[in-house]
């Protein structure tokens, strides 16, 4: 398998769990750049061109609440899980853990 193929498959694999990672990180309020830093620190590198539209989409779906705040002399838009987002995160977390455990069993074979 070429490096290119591996990279493509890796991206596909990560794409599905990015939403979960973002929702999980937004239990605490974050603005776009601070969220990216938090994800990077957790080992999930996501480019800005993917992350910022994703946050907006989740907010449009009502999963995130957002608010403009002044800080350090500049305005920033802070996002945090909404009540609907909280419920969805709980369901998705259960789904992720079940999937992870099932796949782990398959990979052990």
């Amino acid at each position, binding site marked *: 398998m070429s490096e290119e193929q591996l990279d493509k498959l890796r991206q596909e694999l990560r794409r599905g769990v990015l939403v979960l990672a973002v929702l999980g990180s937004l239990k605490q309020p974050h603005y*776009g750049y601070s969220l990216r830093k938090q994800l990077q620190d957790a080992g999930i590198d996501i480019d800005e061109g993917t992350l910022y539209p994703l946050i907006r989409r989740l907010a449009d779906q009502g999963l995130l609440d957002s608010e403009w705040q002044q800080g*350090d002399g500049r305005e920033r838009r802070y996002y945090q899980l909404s009540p609907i987002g909280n419920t969805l995160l709980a369901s998705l977390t259960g789904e992720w853990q079940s999937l992870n455990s099932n796949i782990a069993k398959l990979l052990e074979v």
Partner: protein
Amino acid sequence: MNLIDRYISAVAQQLPASGRDDITRELRANILDRLESLTAEQGRAATTADESAVLRELGHPQQVAASFLPPQTLVNATWFPVFKQCLIYGLFAVFVVQLIGFGVATLSGSDIRITAIVSRIIHAALLMFALVTGVFYALSNLPATAKISPYGNWKPEQLPPVQHQWQRIKLEDTVNEFASNLFFLLALQYSLWMSADTLAQLPVSINPTLQPWLLPLSVWAAFAIVFSLWNLRHNYWTQPKLWLSSAQNFIGCLLAAGLARAEILLINHRLPGPISAHINDILHWVLIVSACLFLYWTLRSIYWLKLTTKITEQ
């Protein structure tokens, strides 16, 4: 106007008015955060070159604007196979219509230019492409509540019972048969659709002694047209279709062989006698070759009929 302002303005240009201010406001905040972080890392104020590098990393304004909008495609993946099939059918239809138009013009003795024909075919094909794409664009972008799908009502029982490649009837064969028989029928019955003036000016006419042949030939051609339309709808061979095909081809063989025996097929009103005789010689050979082809197709249909019977018995 600094680089960031120019960048934001370029992104804004690509966004719909409804979300433009909100998206660009947030984008500016994100860019400034990124530059602030860079300043902290480097221990100095960000330069224009740093700004440029950050903006390049973020992506082309068009690309960034597109990422904030719902994905749009001319034809989505669900409709694409049907779209492609419609384009192929459309192209064949355009070609057949233009070919028949060309045939009719030739029979009427009109002045025909190859460049004009090619230009008409290209124009018609482009128009067809635009129309088909427009319809599928509309279908692909219907609201989710419309719930229209090209595969909504399919049933496994409706799939053609085809095991071998030869059982499928190729689209090009059907179209070729349809177009040639339609042209043949028009040529046989030219007196029905041509004006009296055009008829009077025709350089050739069918030998009057062949008049009794016109009705059976026309019936045969009309049947072949209907049969090719049936094949267009159900593009695979079945036992009844193979019976009909072998009978049709055998009758075609008899008709072509019978006509080939006639001494004069066409009477030329303008050209000198020897040239007219030469044209008739060519037509004789065309009929003999056609009779041979019909015989081959008859035998092929009978052979396939045998194979189909074996498949059915298995």
